[in-house]
């Protein structure tokens, strides 16, 4: 085991590997900063470049660029209110508010430091768990996935402060929308109405961009002003960024909790990584003082999801490497890349190439740090974006969104749907219907149906009587009811 650790360390310090990372990081940063390009699209663009590379070099290239792209997605979430991926939607809520208040640097600094720590946590967990992973992963079957997704949905109610009923409407609408298209059991396309595009239902990228980017662009065009509406008095400097980074350490308990949540959820194959950030956000809210101020620009609302997101990616590498089963959509793509470079992840891979697997974990950690650091250096320039007048920024943003949408799946109809969902997004923004809640419902709705049906068929109605399932239910209930624990305790006492 020790030789594997040392050998892995030796392997990553080869010039080719380091060069690949050095090359991949700036590319990933630039691509990730383009609004309209999600992390997965970026990975898709970059995979062809790895053809012909040596295994570790190619994978280092991809892992590093993915780490960088994730950071970019967080940046656009904060600066522009446009999530780079669905999981960034949780960051949008408080992060963008901070940017509008002229505190973009503060939010960025916190986000980057939280990402670095979360990523480190996730990769450390990866290293510890890899050798013993298999039985753990095998204990998570369909019922567990069902309850986890259900718990994710329950957190929707928590997400929307100030208008919980509207948040629930948004969430249930999202779930309803996710059920369009082929039903997972019978294969009957629901509500496709003869449109070939809708055979698979609505698509995530047009939805996310329409909901978040279009309203933001419209607002910028209407006002003509920059994103940072107030507080433009403050000089742009690194000071805010450093303050933000320090805030992460001030809230170190929450940071560690969010990282732990992220990595554990990331380890479970099937649920996919999107829930991790929302669950972490909700947990942070539940355990904070004055939870109703979340959504107005609380820094914890940035730290928690950011830490969870990067931890989740490290966690998702575990089932990917240990069993060859992708822990998230991006891991699914990475798995394809493994095959491209001639490797077959799984227990055999771990037995024969443990040092390679560990090397990947190191690269994961290193890339997280490097990406965060590079982005920090860029942060001053990035903050300028919030000072650019809307009448210049808005059309550029819109063009990026349109091009990024087409590029994702080579479909002009996707672009049309961005505009359609844009109308929905504007209505929801103005009337205070929580948009991340809709997105979360959309991502989880189909998953819930799928795992419910499978669990029912495989185990019958008693499928919830499994230890891990019960544990998930209990933990979720505790988390949801935590803020009300005093009332519950007094009710119990009065009995």
């Amino acid at each position, binding site marked *: 085991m020790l030789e594997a650790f040392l050998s892995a360390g030796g392997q990553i310090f080869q010039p080719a590997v380091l060069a690949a990372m050095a090359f991949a990081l700036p590319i990933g940063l630039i691509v990730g900063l383009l609004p309209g390009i999600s992390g997965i699209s970026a*990975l*898709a663009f970059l*995979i*062809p470049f790895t*053809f012909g590379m040596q295994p570790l070099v190619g994978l280092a290239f991809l892992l590093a660029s993915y780490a960088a792209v994730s950071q970019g997605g967080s940046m656009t979430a904060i600066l522009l209110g446009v999530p780079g991926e669905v999981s960034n939607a949780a960051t949008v809520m408080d992060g963008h508010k901070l940017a509008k208040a002229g505190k973009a640097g503060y939010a960025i600094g916190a986000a980057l430091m939280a990402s670095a720590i979360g990523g480190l946590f996730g990769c450390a967990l990866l290293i510890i768990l890899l050798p013993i992973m*298999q039985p753990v*992963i*095998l*204990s*998570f*079957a*369909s019922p567990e996935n069902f309850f986890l997704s259900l718990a994710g949905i329950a957190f929707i109610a928590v997400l929307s402060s100030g208008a919980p009923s509207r948040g629930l409407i948004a969430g249930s609408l999202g779930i309803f929308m996710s059920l369009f298209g*082929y039903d*997972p*059991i*019978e*294969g*009957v*396309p629901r509500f*496709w109405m003869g449109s*070939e*595009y809708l*055979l*698979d239902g609505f698509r995530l990228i047009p939805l996310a961009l329409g909901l978040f980017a279009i309203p933001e662009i419209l607002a910028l065009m209407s006002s003509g002003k920059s994103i940072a509406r107030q507080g433009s008095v403050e000089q742009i400097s690194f000071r805010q960024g450093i303050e933000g980074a320090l805030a992460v350490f001030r809230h170190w308990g929450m940071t560690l909790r969010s990282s732990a949540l992220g990595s554990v959820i990331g380890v479970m*194959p*099937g649920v996919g990584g999107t829930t991790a950030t929302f669950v972490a956000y909700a947990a942070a809210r539940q355990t904070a003082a004055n939870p109703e101020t979340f959504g107005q620009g609380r820094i914890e609302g940035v730290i928690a999801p950011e830490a969870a997101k990067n931890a989740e990616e490290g966690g998702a590498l575990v089932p990917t490497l240990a*069993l*060859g*089963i*992708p822990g998230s959509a991006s891991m*699914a*793509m*990475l*798995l*394809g*890349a493994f*095959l*491209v*470079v*001639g490797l*077959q992840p*799984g*227990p*055999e891979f771990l037995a024969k190439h443990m040092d390679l697997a560990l090397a990947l974990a190191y690269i994961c950690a290193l890339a997280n740090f490097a990406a965060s650091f590079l982005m920090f250096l860029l942060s001053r320039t990035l903050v300028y974006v919030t000072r650019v007048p809307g009448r210049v920024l808005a059309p550029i943003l819109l063009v990026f969104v349109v091009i990024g949408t087409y590029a994702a*799946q*080579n*479909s002009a109809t996707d672009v049309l749907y961005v505009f359609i969902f844009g109308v929905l997004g504007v209505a929801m923004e103005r009337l205070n219907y929580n948009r991340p809640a809709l997105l979360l419902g959309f991502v989880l709705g189909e*998953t819930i149906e*799928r*795992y419910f*049906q*499978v669990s029912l*068929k*495989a*185990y019958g109605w008693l499928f919830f009587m499994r230890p891990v399932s019960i544990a998930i239910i209990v933990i979720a209930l505790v988390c949801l009811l935590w803020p009300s624990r005093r009332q519950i305790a007094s009710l119990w006492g009065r009995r």
Partner: protein
Amino acid sequence: MPRNHRHRIDRRALLALGLSAGVAVMAPMPVSAQDSGAFLKGETVRIYVGYSPGGGYDAYARMLAPHFEKRTGATVVVENRPGGQGLTALNQLVRVKPDGLTMMMLNGEGAVMSQLIKQAGVAYDMGTVSMLGRALIEQHVLIVGPNMPDDVKGLMGLKRKIKFSATGRTDNLGDYAAVTCEALKLDCQIITGYKGSKEAGLAVMNGEVDALAISEGSGVEYAQGGRAKLIATIGHQRSELAPNVGLLHEIVQLGPDQKWWLDFRLGIKAVGRSIVAPPGVPADRLQHLQRVWREIMTDPAVMAEGARTQRPLKYEEPGKSQQIVRDLLQTLPANKLNDVNEVLLKKYSS
């Protein structure tokens, strides 16, 4: 002296000239081949893939694309158009201009199955699609969970419902499971709804389901380390990856009805993963494309590269695949079609 020297040089020059002219005249000038490939030179060729990047079809397309570029002088772009479980791209392909510049790396089995059972959204006819060559044919194998009997006879002797996992009814997992159950007369329940074949494999490993009919590559992988057991190959030939595993009809005596189901499904398999083009490509362009793809997919260097990167190539002539498809789609009697629908879609659903 100088004059003679000059003469000799002149004569040598003349001789050289004459020789080169002669060689030039005699050298085989593949005029027709060059003409027939002219429509590709310098053009942009698209290869559609009906799935997201990183998947198997995508990997094959991207592996073969540079070879196509080298042999034709075209620029090849692999376009991922996911949707409709891979069929939306095919729908789009058959509507494109058939000029030979747009092709697709197709899940042929899935396409034929979907058309056969008249799935909603099918807007193509596999009988008219232009076949350019098959890249791969995959054997399927039967794997069971670690706590299940070690062999097929044991499986048949179980006195309870045997649960199979699948992602859908005609996804190469569910349909193989259905015909296996028909052939072996098993009491089965095919649980569809898993997100992908890997999740279906995981379900076997953790005991959620009992069995899975999956492609040989994945089957061999899942069966490692005792996490699952590979008990039979569903095919006419033994799997190269697991040559010691017996074929279903070797292990069990199958009656003619039971054999029919296996033969039916295995017939469709012959279409495999193919490169196709829209119907109506002009004959000369079609032949040229077929020739180029044959050269690529039978080139030992390419096959070696494929073997090295988990993408083996097993070429088959397009004419053969085309014939098989036409036979299947046109000569299946109506009553058999009903039976097929019944078995694939309804019989084992609960």
